[in-house]
């Protein structure tokens, strides 16, 4: 850009010091962009990491605006007044007339826009002078509303940040006029004073992106456990007005809506087992963007999770009591039941009790489980609320009246059964006295416990 010529007589008329260093200012905002600089702490603390992350912006660049050369120009204004009785009167006159005396410099943007102004007394009367060079820049902020990264990733442009001029929506036509510091330009500056101010526009352009993300906490969870999907939208100073949370099975392309509304977080109880992808779409007033997909794995409950459930504890305790109560010197029997998880009611449920045959002291006891209850949904959608059969529980019997002891805990047959049916095995039996065994005539009220048999949890469906 070429500098406009200053009228030489100005320096003769006014006492603007030639020796004074002239600073070039930026209009309208003293703003330049630079890459983010972060402190590299050797072993960073969590707090400093959070602070460090907070310094990350969504501003990328450098790019440019698209100038409409036909509508862009610089306008040079000039006003004189002399022969006034006061400096103020001379200045008032100049301010009134300067706009009437202008000259256009078509398709020009000057880096030395600004003004020269002053008042001076000569031969007993006052004069004033104002010279004002103004840029009028017509431009389009961006051709599209997306920015494609050097690695080919498409991002939504939230704002176009044009150097010192300001922030604008993408694909917007703008006519910017500056400098326009009217108070500094036209306010009376005093008698016998002159000022000379140089301004330029910084047109280095950057895009501020809208980048949504989704936090899944935890990313792997079990049925009936609480899960949080938290939408994040960057920059955070522009909170979206609406969020659409969606989920699909990893092996499917069909998306299902979890929620659609103003809330940025969704708290759900895990209901469908499987591997899923989730995403969030965030809406702002003038932009919408979709997060990258996050994987979410919903597992069947583990052995520990099952036996920690209060309903399971109550029901298995009752079964153990029943088993002890049914034990006599001549007979004893096992009992058991299927354990289900109902994600609709969010409770553990139990199938009808299986009672094993009563056997004498010399015979091993057993129970024959009834048919495994089917899951309520064979291929549930990600937003269904199925009931799953996840475990089988049964008791072992006392040796109080038996002539010999036995090993405690799940038998080989138990393990085979649970593995075959792909359910968690839960067995209640006495705690071992020595070597994993209890003796004959073991007191009926002795300590007992739950034992694990088979898989830790039911296999995850595809």
């Amino acid at each position: 850009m070429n500098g406009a010529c200053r009228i030489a007589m100005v320096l003769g008329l006014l006492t603007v010091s030639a020796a004074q260093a002239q600073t070039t200012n930026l209009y309208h905002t003293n703003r330049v962009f630079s890459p983010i600089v972060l402190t590299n702490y050797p072993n960073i603390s969590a707090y400093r990491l959070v602070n460090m992350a907070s310094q990350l912006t969504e501003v990328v660049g450098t790019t440019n605006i698209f100038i409409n050369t036909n509508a862009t120009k610089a306008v040079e204004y000039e006003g004189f007044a002399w022969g006034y009785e006061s400096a103020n009167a001379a200045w008032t006159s100049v301010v009134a007339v300067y706009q009437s005396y202008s000259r256009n410099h078509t398709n020009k943007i000057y880096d030395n826009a600004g003004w020269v102004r002053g008042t001076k007394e000569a031969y007993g009367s006052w004069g004033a002078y104002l010279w004002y060079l103004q840029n009028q820049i017509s431009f389009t902020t961006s051709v599209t509303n997306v920015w494609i990264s050097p690695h080919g990733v498409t991002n939504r442009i939230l704002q176009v940040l044009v150097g010192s001029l300001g922030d604008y929506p993408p694909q917007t036509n703008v006519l910017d006029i500056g400098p326009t510091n009217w108070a500094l330009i036209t306010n009376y500056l005093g008698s016998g004073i002159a000022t000379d101010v140089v301004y330029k526009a910084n047109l280095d352009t950057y895009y501020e992106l809208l980048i949504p993300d989704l936090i899944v906490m935890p990313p792997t969870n079990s049925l009936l456990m609480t899960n949080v999907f938290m939408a994040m939208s960057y920059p955070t100073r522009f909170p979206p007005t609406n969020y659409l949370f969606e989920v699909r099975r990893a092996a499917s392309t069909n998306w299902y809506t979890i929620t659609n509304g103003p809330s940025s977080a969704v708290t759900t109880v895990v209901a469908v087992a499987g591997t899923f992808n989730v995403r969030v779409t965030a809406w702002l007033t003038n932009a919408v963007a979709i997060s990258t997909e996050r994987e979410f794995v919903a597992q069947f409950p583990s052995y520990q999770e099952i036996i920690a459930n209060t309903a399971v504890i109550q029901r298995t305790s009752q079964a153990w009591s029943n088993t002890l109560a049914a034990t006599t010197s001549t007979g004893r029997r096992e009992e058991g039941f299927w354990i289900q998880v109902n994600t609709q009611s969010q409770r553990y449920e139990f199938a009808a009790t299986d009672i094993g045959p009563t056997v004498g002291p010399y015979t091993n006891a057993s129970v024959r489980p009834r048919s495994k209850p089917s899951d309520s949904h064979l291929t549930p959608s990600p937003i269904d609320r199925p009931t799953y059969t996840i475990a089988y529980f049964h008791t072992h019997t006392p040796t109080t009246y038996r002539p010999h002891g036995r090993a405690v805990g799940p038998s080989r047959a138990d393990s085979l059964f649970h593995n075959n049916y792909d359910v968690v095995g839960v067995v209640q039996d006495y705690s071992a006295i020595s070597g994993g065994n209890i003796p004959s005539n073991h007191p009926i009220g002795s300590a007992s416990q739950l034992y694990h048999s088979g898989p830790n949890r039911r296999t995850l469906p595809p």
Partner: protein
Amino acid sequence: MVQKLKRLFGRVDLRLLSGLAVVVLAATLILAVATEKEEAVYFDKAEYDAIFAARVETIYDLEQWFVPQQYALLPIVPPVADFVLKGQPGEPGLIPFTAEKFPKEFVKGLVGLREYSVPVYPVTIAENPVTRAVEFYNLEGQLIHTLSPATGYDPFAYLKDKMPALYTTRAHPDTRAYWERMLDPARVQITARLIEPDDVEHWLYAKAQVLAAQAELEGGGEMMMMLLQESTTTNIYFSKMAKVTNGLSMTIVYPAGFTNGLDIFMCSELVPEIWSFAAKDLPTGGTNLVWVDTNNWVQTGYPVRMYAAADATTDTDGDGYPDGRELMVYQTDPNAATSHPATVSGSVSYTGPETGKVYVVFATESESWSLAKSLTLTSPAAYVNSEIGNHQSYWIKAFRDVNGNLTRDAWEPWGAHAGNPLLVTGDVSGIDIAMQDVPSVWGTISYSGAATGDVYVVAITSSNSWDATHQTVLPWITSGGLTGEQYFASFPMNYSIAGMPVSNYWIRAFVDEDYNGVYTPGEPAGQHALNAIPVSNRVAGVGITLGLDSDGDGFTDFEEGFVSGMNPDDAQDGITALAIVRSKIRAHWTAINATAPTFSHPPGSQADLNELKEKLMTLATNFFVGGPAAP
């Protein structure tokens, strides 16, 4: 010293332009002097140069001139805690100053005198021992300007440099306090004589003329100092001192025929030079006597003592008090009968928890705690002091010497008579003193992390503050060593803060990793308790653990409770905070790269934090931030 220089350098940028102006002006003057060299020399050119080399353009220049003088004299200040080296002339004593660049009230307040018929303005520069501001006083002792201390100014930086071991856990706090009193830069005041630059030449010329005239009058001979040597046969003197089982034995020699009684005096503080009675009216005979000092101070008192002896009978003014006693103990005029000791009596009361001897101090300066005229009480009680010279004002006060170091420490209970200063003209009673506890906190700083830096401990009355009004600084580097090796502090560190008003205080501390003298978020910090503790006397056991993380979420309790609004006892908020960091990294990463970032370490582990940091460092190069253009 480093801290002091830091204080000065902090102002350099403000004076850059004026500094350039000085250079230009000085160059002009040098040229002028060089031109005159060919002509008759009316004054000492070297002195002229020396004076102008010290020219000050601003009040800050004067402060810069003051500081080195202050520290040059500090090591030779007599080791008496209340002594202040006053009125010391600086070097050079005459300083040209640019009046128009000094603060208006400073210039307006200057009081001048005429030296060699030229106006000169003496200004005494002092460091306030409480606020640490540099204060400027005119000839009449009026404060005409004050410069606040720079942030982080440490008045004991000199001491820390010279005696770093004092700031280790091995040093007893009282020892450190003693030396901080001894090497307090506030004990040195320097007097500068300011002169208008245009008057320097006149001053030098007039001085040269006067000296020349004096030399002519004195015949140009050299001056000689006569030394007087006392005759031992006509005076009383100590000929021998020896430690014996029950005390200190001394042989006092006096002239033959001396039959008056002999008083023995003891003095432990030479500067006020007030003596106490060691023994009264010892009988004499022959030419000497042997006396054993078995006073209490021999076993438990002052490690350094001076003894004197005097005639216990001669009473020139006939007021009933021997001359020796008046001169040595009562500080009264032995030639004036109206000048004699009076009796001051009263009682000392105290209701606090502290124990120890009570010293009733009779000082002739308001700030003094000299024990020279003091009485010792085993507990608060009535007192009578019959050795107080009349026609003299006294500041009568008392303190409880809790640690038995014979010095009033800042944290020890004390009190002053409400009518101080008391002009004693005759016997006076009812001079009661109520001692009060001094609020102070004492405790230990614990820290097991890797951060290093000076440890700052503050007592604050506002929960979200780091106000340094009541602060102590524990240095990280404790010694430079003779061969340059450095020694570092170790935790736990003991600390104490004393002298704050009675109030409730939060006691918190931090490791100043960046050595900027203030807490920077992220630096290891801690607070004694969630709530403020009442401090009305000496409160001990105020322990602080820095960097404590009660819930183990990676964020310290201090960062959670006082900086970021998290819950120090809830690990989930820390997990969430790091999940958000991970989200931000992922979002930005996938905005640039076609593949998602991988996080390969257990969340919250140090390896995880470092991995996240590395990814942030990588991402930072892709994103920009707006800010003001460089000037």
